């Protein structure tokens, strides 16, 4: 974990390292369970920087990008965005084709022609725009759902580490010709210059090393709230365990006193 311009105690660093681990696990598990994708190799790095840091990470390039973003609210206010370069997005979409083809066929209103047979030219031709609206819609829908799952995993990880509760808004997929649009998505609606958490995931999928950028912005008050909660985390061990156990499996009404 790298922190620039943000003072963190060892307890905070430990908390954010665990967030990185949980976040990376979620990415891998989601890609596998949702899309049957095998990630052959992965590495990840977390950076925490002030939004107005002149040395804010620029490594994700200048664009174009595909992103899925949403806001979150509750105990924490912020934004989240998952970003891929155009080339990586095309490759990922291509890798999703087998599953998306099956999805297309299961649509009661679909034609018998498989999605794979209708694969638009843009998958192979980087100079072409998406023209097949049906295919574009389904690919974006799948990407939005991936974003929904990933941000949910992130807010759950934050809850398990801090007991701070957050709900997210509907994810929206966008194509951006440059990074200014992504920047705008990350500070939309925030009252104060946020702190930026950047998780850089390198994922080897289908022979290509993709870079999935996970950006989380937290407004100043929310970031301090996270730090305060991490300071108290040692005394919350039993609560965190309960939260973890309730997190990822079905829960039935009769098992709770409701």
């Amino acid at each position, binding site marked *: 974990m790298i922190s620039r311009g943000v003072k963190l105690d060892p307890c905070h660093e430990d908390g954010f390292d665990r967030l990185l681990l949980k976040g990376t696990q979620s990415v891998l*598990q*989601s890609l596998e*369970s*949702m899309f049957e994708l095998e990630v052959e190799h992965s590495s990840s790095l977390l950076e925490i920087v002030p939004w107005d840091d002149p040395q804010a990470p620029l490594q994700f390039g200048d664009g174009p990008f595909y992103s899925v973003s949403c806001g979150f609210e*509750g105990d924490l206010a912020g934004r989240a965005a998952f970003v891929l370069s155009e080339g990586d997005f095309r490759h990922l979409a291509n890798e999703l084709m087998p599953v*998306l083809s*099956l*999805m*297309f066929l*299961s*649509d*009661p209103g679909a034609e018998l022609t498989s999605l794979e047979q209708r694969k638009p030219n843009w998958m192979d031709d980087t100079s072409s725009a998406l023209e097949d609206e049906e295919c574009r*819609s*389904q690919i974006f*829908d*799948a990407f*939005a*759902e991936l974003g*929904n*799952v990933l*941000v*949910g*995993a*992130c*807010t*759950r*990880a*934050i*809850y398990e580490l801090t007991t701070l*509760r*957050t*709900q*997210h*808004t*509907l994810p929206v997929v966008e194509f951006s010709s440059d990074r200014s649009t992504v920047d705008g998505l990350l500070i939309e609606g925030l009252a104060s210059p946020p702190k930026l958490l950047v998780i850089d995931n390198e994922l080897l999928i289908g022979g290509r090393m993709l870079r999935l950028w996970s950006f989380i912005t937290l407004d100043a008050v929310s970031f301090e709230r996270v730090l305060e909660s991490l300071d108290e985390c040692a005394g919350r061990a039993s609560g965190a365990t309960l*939260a973890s156990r*309730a*997190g*990822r*499996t*079905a*829960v*039935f*009404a009769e098992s*709770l006193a*409701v």
Partner: protein
Amino acid sequence: MASILIVDDSAFARSSLQIIVEGGGHKVIGRARNGEEAVDLFNELKPELVTLDFLMAGETGDQVLERLLSITPEAKVIMISGMGDPAIQEKALAAGARCFLPKPFDKGDVLDSIDRVLQP
């Protein structure tokens, strides 16, 4: 084999769940993208069970759940969400959902939950 109505604004999620559900021997008799479609199909098709996504554009899952239960108080509804906040789960169960399932779907978990909810 149960007749199931799937409600989710994501086509991918609807299809993913349909594949799991039908692979388990049940029949998806309807798919709704939002609250209005859910209520219309619920009234028309009278499914034995409904799977209902919490986070949707327009009406949220708990709002749709309230409408379904006002039509059929004993309706069997499984709430589904990718949300990480456990309060969503608590809210859904308190509102009358029989079960809460997280996303991404776990095939075994989905089918076991359906079987358990359908038990008399």
